[in-house]
């Protein structure tokens, strides 16, 4: 019981701190964290934000990175992991997914991705994330420790959360919620991100007609945001002067107040050049803190994105070009062109079941022009910066949450094996629904 004794004090202190945080901070969420102390030694440490440490040690304690460096001594009682020949990287971050909201695509009862209606600003995914979803373990054993998970339906889809891929309850998993407001840019036909699904399905409409519909939807979007601004102003006014008439509660408009005030980022799912231009004009006019998601043709407006300082969550990279006459590798070269123009990028899978393939989206972009180091940053520190969580995750730095992976090579390479996954300082078992079925049927006589 030595361990318990040694950790009694920090545990109590930690519990007190957590209690304090729960009372005093507006955050409703408390992350689950490990209480073991680990020392990963003899490792090649790819810190991402600093230089690579060729033969170093990472110490994990109370869920955090307690120390990192070449000359770090092993704390007494620490579980030692000898990482000779192995590398330590920050856990990878998938910057736009549906993880936890969907289990089996074609089974409606298992899918909670899209709400009905144009304005779903008040819905927030943190109430519908299923901690036991098999997708979570399947994803993390491939090195993805953190994901933004977002609702998808309507014009304003609702509020996303950033989750760590471990925890007994959604609240234990959540790193940040709400993370952002998600908007599906209305476009002239096509699926999500190519415009909303207007009118009866399958009905052929002229381009002109679709464009008019699109313009109407954009105006609708602006009107909703202006209403939210007015609603917020009215709330403030009444707070100062209670003699003013009380307005009817509108939860959708209320949810948009931090958006129109530039306090909550807006993730706009938009892909085509023409729509990207319109979306850039829109966020400029409405003074929003914007992030582009999807951005298949973002490379065509890279200079504008750079000028307005709008980051792009690129992906999926592994897709065919939009137009027949696009270069065959248009989707692969997109990220490299954006990065070269100085646009901040991160990668996403825009998926749940296939979030585990995030590193290969980044890898393909690196094969087609994005420098390898940038590709790695775009699945670690850049998404953390874009999503406002870089103080806690995205690199190997003292004080950050111990979301780490130990690998036998470059995590963007398919053949690389993941040897350990730490989330919140917990050494996660490398098992999933897939490994369990594998072991079961491998043993079939």
């Amino acid at each position: 019981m030595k361990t318990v004794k040694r950790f009694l004090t920090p545990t109590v202190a930690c519990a007190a701190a957590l209690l304090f945080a729960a009372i005093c901070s507006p955050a409703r969420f408390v992350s689950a964290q490990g209480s073991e102390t680990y020392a990963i030694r003899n490792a090649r440490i790819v810190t991402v934000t600093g230089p690579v440490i060729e033969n170093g040690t990472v110490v994990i304690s109370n869920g955090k990175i307690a120390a990192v460096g070449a000359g770090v001594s092993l704390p007494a009682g620490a579980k030692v992991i000898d990482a000779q020949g192995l590398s330590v990287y920050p856990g990878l971050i998938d910057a736009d997914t549906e993880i936890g909201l969907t289990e089996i695509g074609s089974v409606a009862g298992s899918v909670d991705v899209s709400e009905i209606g144009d304005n779903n600003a008040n819905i927030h995914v943190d109430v519908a994330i299923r901690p036991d979803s098999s997708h979570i373990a399947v994803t993390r054993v491939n090195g993805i420790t953190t994901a933004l998970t977002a609702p998808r339906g309507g014009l304003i889809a609702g509020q996303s959360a950033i989750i760590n891929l471990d925890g007994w309850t959604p609240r234990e998993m959540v790193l940040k919620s709400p993370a952002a407001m998600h908007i599906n840019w209305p476009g002239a036909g096509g699926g999500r991100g190519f415009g909303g699904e207007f009118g009866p399905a399958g009905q052929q409409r002229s381009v002109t007609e679709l464009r008019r519909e699109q313009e109407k939807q954009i105006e609708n979007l602006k009107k909703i945001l202006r209403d939210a601004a007015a609603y917020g102003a009215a709330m403030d006014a009444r707070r100062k002067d209670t003699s003013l008439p009380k307005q009817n509660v509108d939860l959708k408009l209320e949810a948009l107040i931090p958006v129109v005030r530039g306090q909550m980022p807006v993730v706009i799912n938009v892909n085509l050049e023409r729509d990207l231009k319109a979306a850039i004009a829109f966020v400029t006019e409405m003074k929003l803190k914007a992030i582009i998601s999807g951005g298949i043709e973002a490379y065509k407006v890279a200079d504008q994105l750079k000028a307005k300082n709008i980051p792009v969550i690129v992906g999926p990279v592994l897709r065919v070009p939009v137009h027949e006459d696009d270069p065959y590798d248009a989707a692969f070269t997109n990220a490299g062109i954006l990065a070269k123009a100085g646009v901040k990028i991160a990668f996403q899978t825009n998926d749940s079941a296939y979030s585990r393939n995030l590193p290969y989206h980044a890898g393909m972009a690196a094969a087609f022009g994005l420098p390898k180091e940038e590709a790695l940053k775009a699945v670690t520190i850049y998404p953390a910066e874009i999503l406002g969580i870089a103080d806690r995750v995205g690199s190997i730095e003292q004080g950050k949450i111990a979301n780490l992976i130990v690998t036998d090579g470059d995590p963007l390479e398919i053949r690389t094996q993941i040897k350990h996954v730490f989330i919140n300082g917990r050494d996660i078992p490398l098992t999933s629904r897939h490994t369990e079925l594998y072991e079961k049927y491998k043993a079939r006589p």
Partner: protein
Amino acid sequence: MKKIKPILSMLLTSALTASAFAQTGGNAKLTAGAGSAVAVTAPSETLIRNGTILTASHGTINNGSILIRDGKIVEVGPNVKARDPNARVIDATGKYVTPGIIDCHSHTGVEGNVNEGSLSVTAMVRIRDVIDPYSPSIYRELAGGTTAANVLHGSANSIGGQNAVVKWKIGKPVDQWIIPDAPQGIKFALGENPKRSNSQGLPAGTARRYPATRMGVEETIREAFIQAKDYMRVWHEYEAKKATDKNAIPPRRDLTMDALVEILEGKRMVHSHCYRDDEILMLLNLSDELGFHVQTLQHVLEGYKVAKEMAAHKTGGSTFSDWWAYKLEAYDAIPYNAALMASRGVIVSMNSDSDELARRLYLEAAKAMKYGGVSEEEALRMVTLNPAIQLGIDKRTGSIDVGKDADLVIFSQHPFSVYTVPELTIIEGEVYFDRNEDLKQREALKREKADLIKREREQRGGPRGPRGERPEEPQPRPNETSDKL
């Protein structure tokens, strides 16, 4: 679609030009202007020299060369020299050469024609009749090193239509794409798709089609074959009678039955879409009962559960590397499927079922190493030699061996590295994709497109057209063609 045509033709032109350019080089003579007709005196030999050759059949040859003559591989090894002084020489120093990638499950080029879904037995329809040689996906797949494909009917029917095994010889007449000595095949399908459990939005008044259960799928196949056996018997009786009776009346030909008889006679390969272990066993048992062979199980996501039975039936498995969870019958799919099936002696291939995935099957193969520890050569075979064996074309393609067609890909790095780029794709000694040429053509294509749009607008009277309408821009195409749902 009218307005898209100029761009389509442009694409085709570019592909043709690129390949024509690329065939030359070395000392070959050519006269060419950008975009104009190209007259080429092709060299009789091509030598790919000093590359790392992954043969897929007999290991890796470092600093090896491949000599190609008349579209065939005539020599492979460390010290190979061209005989023709004018031979085209491709320097592969620092690069990797693999056999052309073969996709054992494709619907490329048959967009909109994948399923004749009105009946559950449509053995009479033929994919070879509906391949669109202008599909932009074909060039993109060549750019991913894919040289050959099993183009299949969709999975809406218990017994679907006839397949076409093709090489992507873009720019050649489409009837030359079909591999002449490839055994004929046919698509079967089991589970959710033939029982139509995921098809929504049927037109008003449309009845649900039989079968609606896995039980009904089995009976549909059994009944069709029993009918085919009767049909076969009637024909045999007629053939016997004809010898003695000049006035014997031939039975009426039935194209559906003809195809099923070919299956029973072992002249047509069954490629069956399936997911669950129960339906796999059902088909294997049914094939024993009715006397036909199941050549491959396609998707076969639970093949790992019944790999022993598959191996005993000499039935191949053609699977996805890691697709899962998109429907209930794909919920037990695991990325270890390929490795587990292979470990039980099943010939395994990795397929795409997707115009997108078909461009990077070389990376999909690497996943067999990651999940289940398959060796490097076995993993490469899963997208080269194994699909060739499954399609009965391994005598002519699928590995780098003397006597085989020169279907080859040159990669910038090891084909299993995520950082690799396919640079040159060769079919029967001819270059069908050359990345350098592709890059060179891009500016010219841009100018040509701008010019076409300008002319289009002028014809319609001003930038906004006669009725104030903007000229139509090409609309985005769906991401992929797939029968996964």
